[in-house]
């Protein structure tokens, strides 16, 4: 992975010293809140419902064991002993005190981490496939390019005061696990005539107006990437709307001007910018690529794995759901579920973080990943070590065998923490997981993604959930709207609204009726999304609103 240079360390130290002085000036009264707020937001510090919240970037979801250890230490020293992993591959601390934040940032800087551009109208943390560098289906590891984009976008003077925030996601695999079609820019590594380049998608996004990204170019040569990205962002920076924050994102610009006009403007701008990139970016990319070289994979017997798989049904269930094929012989990708039934999706205690760090160090070539689905990944594990890892995970409540199943729910913090939320998300996720665990149905149901957001901003990706749940405030009561048939992958689709919303008491039985309908109507081996696409909304609507059916009859 990328190692900070002396320049990086100095930059971060200077920036942290600057913020420390700003915090001091706020506390001693020299700065008002109006003056301080943009400064704290530039450093990832929000003021939420009950406390401050510090959002720390985990660039493209990659971290090593030392970094994970520090995340655990910070949670114990300055927070309440846990952290919350988010859909943007960040970690959030929900309870820091203002005076402690500079110390937290210094602790992060020691292991090459920070909270810069995790807020504000800037280019945010670049997200990537959480199986990057490990997946069997990958064309190329997207992380060197993600690092190049990170360096280019961090403190980029032209892009600090844009119409709105800007999010870039990248995948190196044809199977899109990075939700590239729902980002301002999505990049997909593609090959043409033996050389690697990118399909570039622009104008995707969720929120109030969900849009699937459109292809602006189907093949961009790798060496053109930065000038092309700069062209896109600068075109939007110039013509994007600043009159209305809900219309300020590039998806609206693309929608209003049309992709052909945007493409023309971008090409025009690119022609000017291309010459200003001297090739230093490609030299840097070569350096980063060397730093992301694959670990030394070993050859050893898989007997311990095979024995455990045949002997231990609990291990077998876990291996069947939480393991993904690896590109190297004898290796696996392990997804550690942060979705124990009834637990808060994405939360990990300090002890859990330390265990995962330790396992990465002992068995996983010192690498960890955070997925946008709020789980933690050990990307490089030899199969012979899986039984030991599973046993260790069980001791910390981390061995839940539910990856991709109905209880592996994305949920934003919702109104339990977030100042923007219109309803709670976490308790709904907890109840759904607990309910289907009690029914012992989730393995029978199979691959089914539930995604919950506590407001229209859609941090919980509800639009692209197979079942999406959106929490709203309806006349002073929490109300939950259901969408069906969303898809976050390469076949991305925005879910269809099922009908009127449900109260907090009604939403769990409503989800159960959807699932029962699916189980009744599915063909042999047909997953939920496929069944929905075949059947359409009608049978699910009938199950959700039996009274309406009765009245119509």
């Amino acid at each position: 992975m990328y190692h900070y240079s002396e320049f990086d360390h100095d930059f971060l130290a200077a920036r942290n010293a600057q913020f420390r002085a700003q915090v001091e000036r706020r506390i001693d009264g020299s700065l008002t809140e109006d003056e301080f707020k943009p400064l704290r937001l530039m450093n990832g510090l929000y003021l939420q419902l009950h406390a401050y919240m510090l959002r720390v970037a985990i660039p493209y979801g990659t971290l090593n064991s030392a970094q994970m250890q520090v995340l655990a230490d910070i949670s114990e020293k300055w927070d309440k002993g846990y952290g919350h992993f988010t859909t943007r591959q960040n970690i959030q601390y929900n309870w820091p005190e203002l005076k402690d934040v500079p110390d937290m940032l210094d602790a992060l800087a020691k292991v090459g981490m920070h909270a810069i551009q995790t807020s504000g109208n800037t280019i945010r943390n670049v997200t990537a496939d959480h199986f990057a560098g490990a997946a069997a289906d990958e064309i190329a590891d997207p992380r060197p390019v993600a690092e190049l984009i990170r360096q280019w976008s961090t403190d980029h003077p032209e892009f600090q005061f844009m119409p709105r925030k800007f999010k870039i996601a990248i995948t190196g695999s044809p199977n899109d696990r990075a939700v590239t079609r729902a980002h301002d820019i999505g990049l997909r590594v593609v090959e043409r005539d033996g050389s690697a380049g990118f399909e570039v998608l622009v104008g995707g996004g969720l929120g109030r107006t969900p849009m699937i990204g459109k292809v602006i170019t189907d093949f961009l040569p790798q060496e053109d990437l930065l000038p092309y990205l700069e062209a896109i962002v600068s075109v939007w920076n110039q013509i994007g709307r600043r009159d209305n924050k809900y219309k300020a994102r590039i998806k609206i610009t693309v929608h209003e001007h049309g992709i052909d006009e945007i493409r023309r403007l971008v090409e025009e701008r690119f022609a000017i910018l291309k010459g200003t990139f001297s090739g230093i970016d490609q030299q840097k990319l070569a350096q980063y690529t060397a730093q992301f070289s694959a670990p030394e994979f070993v050859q050893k017997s898989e007997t311990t794995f095979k024995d455990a798989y045949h002997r231990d049904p609990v291990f077998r269930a876990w291996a069947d759901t939480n393991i993904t094929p690896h590109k190297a012989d004898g290796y696996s990708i392990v997804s550690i579920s942060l979705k124990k039934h009834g637990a808060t999706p994405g939360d990990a205690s300090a002890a859990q973080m330390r265990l995962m760090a330790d396992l990465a160090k002992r068995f996983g070539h010192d690498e960890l990943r955070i997925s946008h689905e709020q789980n933690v990944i050990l990307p490089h594990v030899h199969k012979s070590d899986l039984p030991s890892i599973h046993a260790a995970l069980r001791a910390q409540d981390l061995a839940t065998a539910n990856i991709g199943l109905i209880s592996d729910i994305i949920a934003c913090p919702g109104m339990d923490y977030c100042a923007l939320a219109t309803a709670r998300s976490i308790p709904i996720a907890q109840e759904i997981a607990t309910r289907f665990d009690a029914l012992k149905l989730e393995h029978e149901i199979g691959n089914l993604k539930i995604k919950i957001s506590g407001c229209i901003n859609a941090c919980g990706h509800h639009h692209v959930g197979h079942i999406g749940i959106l929490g709203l405030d309806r006349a002073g009561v929490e109300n939950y709207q259901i969408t069906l048939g969303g898809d976050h992958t390469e076949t991305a689709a925005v879910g269809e609204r099922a009908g009127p919303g449900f109260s907090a008491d009604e939403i769990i039985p409503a989800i159960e009726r959807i699932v029962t309908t699916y189980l009744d109507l599915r063909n042999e081996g047909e997953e939920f999304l496929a069944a929905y696409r075949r059947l359409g909304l009608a049978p699910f609507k009938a199950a959700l609103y039996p009274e309406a059916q009765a009245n119509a009859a």
Partner: protein
Amino acid sequence: MPKAFTPKIVTANDLLKGDVIYQTVDGWSRDLHDAEVLTDEAHADLRLIEGSQQSGQVVGVYLADTVVEDGQPTTTHFREAFRAKGPSNYVDGKQETTKQEVA
């Protein structure tokens, strides 16, 4: 026709801790029950301005609706109820500690 004025409290977040606080007759409290109930619109506006001026101690000052039950102010909307109580997934925030005086 303008809506009739309903009782209000002045609420904000504490600058240092970020915690939810309520304006009392002579300061701020972390406990909703200590809040000064404002039944007169002009007085409420004045108290809001007075609260907002204390930017060295508090952040995000606003008026929230309240009703008095058993002689104590309580919330009318679930958002304010969550602010007064703390998150529902852990016993954190105000649920951890008993009443503390601030400012």
